């Protein structure tokens, strides 16, 4: 497999390290707004890192920056580093990026129907992916690899499915095909961007099981991007919580759910209806709405919705503060 030899096996060196990443987008009015502003995160070898946040918080933009798939020309990496295997992907020339994208870093998307080509059979698309990244094999061999992959992701009658078109398959099947395609080259890192959001809950359970099984089988790292804290709790070992373009809290999954430190994380955890809560009672809420990225307040971005807001929050943006081992939160109220 590509990249197996120089794979990071040392548990302490991160496979992927993002430092102070700033990505901006051009608006119709000709301004540039920062979709993410100073994101730092590590992905360790063999872990599933969850990134959770609401729409517009920058979780997908972070993923697309790693893949160098930001929409052009609107999206641009302004500054920061994306270190993958000692190479800064943020500064890599587009043609050299191809050696990483798809073979060492793969991505699956929310809506598999838009990510698959509707006019080609599933088999042809899979074989194309295999041939593109493995230079010294023939078409026959690629075919058998593709069938094997389909079998591995739990598709019944893989031989027959190879000849079918994406529209003939259900949403769950399509997502399995996407996963097969993403894993066909044995990547070191899989980025899953809301992989189950478009699926029904019983099918979601199947796909999450599949991703966990494939991760355990190959030892790859996974970035699981979702808005669903339930999905995070079930899949991830560590979690980054994002809000309005920044990471507000990072912790291992048990710590995050048992002792969240940032007021946003706390509010989010409190506000979800659970099967055990008392019915027909008011849920705790985070008041207000996320500020617009084009009109951010100075200081903390959560200040207008925070129940612990202080004077300093209105002027100074909080830096990540250590709360415990491997647990940081960007909030002025911590330690006070």
């Amino acid at each position, binding site marked *: 497999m590509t990249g197996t030899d120089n794979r990071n096996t040392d548990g302490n060196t991160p496979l992927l390290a993002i430092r102070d990443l700033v990505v901006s987008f051009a608006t119709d009015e000709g301004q540039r707004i920062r979709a993410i502003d100073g994101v730092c995160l590590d992905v360790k070898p063999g872990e599933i890192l969850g990134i959770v946040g*609401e729409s517009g918080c920058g979780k997908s933009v972070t993923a697309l920056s790693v893949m160098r798939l930001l929409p052009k020309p609107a999206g641009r990496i302004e500054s920061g580093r994306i270190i993958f295997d000692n190479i800064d992907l943020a500064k890599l020339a587009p043609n050299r990026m191809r050696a990483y994208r798809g073979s060492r870093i793969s991505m699956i998307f929310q809506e598999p129907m838009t990510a698959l080509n509707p006019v080609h059979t599933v088999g042809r698309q899979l074989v194309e992916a295999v041939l593109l990244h493995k230079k010294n094999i023939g078409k026959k061999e690629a075919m058998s690899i593709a069938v094997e992959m389909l079998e591995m992701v739990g598709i019944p009658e893989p031989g027959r499915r190879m000849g079918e078109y994406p529209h003939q398959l259900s949403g769950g099947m399509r997502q399995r095909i996407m996963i097969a395609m993403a894993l066909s080259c044995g990547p070191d890192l899989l980025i899953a961007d809301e992989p189950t959001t478009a699926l029904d809950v019983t099918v979601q359970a199947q796909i999450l099981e599949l991703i966990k099984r494939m991760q355990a089988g190959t030892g790859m790292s996974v970035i699981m991007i979702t808005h669903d804290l339930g999905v995070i709790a*079930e899949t991830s070992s560590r979690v980054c919580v994002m809000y309005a373009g920044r990471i507000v809290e990072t912790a291992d999954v048990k710590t995050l*759910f048992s002792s969240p430190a940032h007021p946003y994380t706390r509010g989010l955890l409190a506000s979800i*209806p659970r099967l055990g809560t008392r*019915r027909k009672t008011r849920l705790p809420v985070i008041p207000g709405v996320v500020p617009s990225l084009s009109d951010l307040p100075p200081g903390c971005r959560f200040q207008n919705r925070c129940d612990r807001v202080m004077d300093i929050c209105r002027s100074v943006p909080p830096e990540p503060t250590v709360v415990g081992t491997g647990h940081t939160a960007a909030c002025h109220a911590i330690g006070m």
Partner: protein
Amino acid sequence: MQKSPFILEVKDLKKHFPIRGGLFFRRKGTVFAVDGVSFSLRRGETLGLVGESGCGKTTVGRCITWLYKPTSGTITYDGIDMAAIHGAGLRKIRKEVQMVFQDPFESLNPRHTVGHILEEPFIIHRIGNAQQRRRAVSRLLDRVGLPGSAMDRFPHEFSGGQRQRIGIARAIALSPKLLICDEPVSALDVSIQSQILNLLLDLQRESGFTCLFIAHDLAVVRHVSDWIAVMYLGQIVEYTDADTIYKAPLHPYTKALISAIPIPDPTAATHRQVLSGDLPSPSDPPQGCRFHTRCPFKVKMCEKTAPSLQPADTASSAPVHQVACHRAAELAQRQDKQPNLP
């Protein structure tokens, strides 16, 4: 005449859609979207209708609001058969039965100001003069937690959650007796979802309307409902109160649905029953029990005979518990492992 305790009674509702295609648009098949659904809705209470996409829950809602004409079956609203009513009578029902839609981006006219959108129900039903209507609109905005200045702005100037507030304001404008909410929070962000759920609960407490709450998220539905009906491929497979449904579910599909919900607690032990396979197409539902293709407990009989919704014969304390499963009693006795819920 004694008023029935039920504001809405649905009996054996069926809605089939033709699939047309080819030369002269011939009928090629039928989608059995809703295929024999019966339930009653008590005044002032909330019934949650849950199920996965394609189970027919939205179609049920649209038949009740008369947006679809049912293929067969009866819908009785406040003692009146909906099929037999026209003209002024239908207008009265249209006033009393209102709907909140899933997508607050598509259900509001982008060219009308919020004031205009909210005034329209009053104009259509000829209520009040311009000044009174304007006052009513500003009261509505206040009730759903929007500033009075929203009146002169357009829907695109609002966020998703605020737009859903506008949609809710429009639905409650004429003080409806029955509110049909079709996935009202599923397009919204998590922190906004709870705001909208609270708003709906508050409004119901204030005005006492009856609610049919349609959604795919069992945790959300359970939170707002008194009763829950679980649908699968156009039929109700289980019906009981909202506490029993997750404490003592009987139908294998309900159990699988509950166990499939990702629990936001990493320490929770999951006894997940992952269902194999996908939802069969509603245009070609399986013979016998519709769930048998995915059921881990199916026997020969399930492939041939369709089970009907029967009162469950269990020792559980639930006063009303109906289930459509041949083996419900037997499986309940076996005390199958229940998923551990927080």
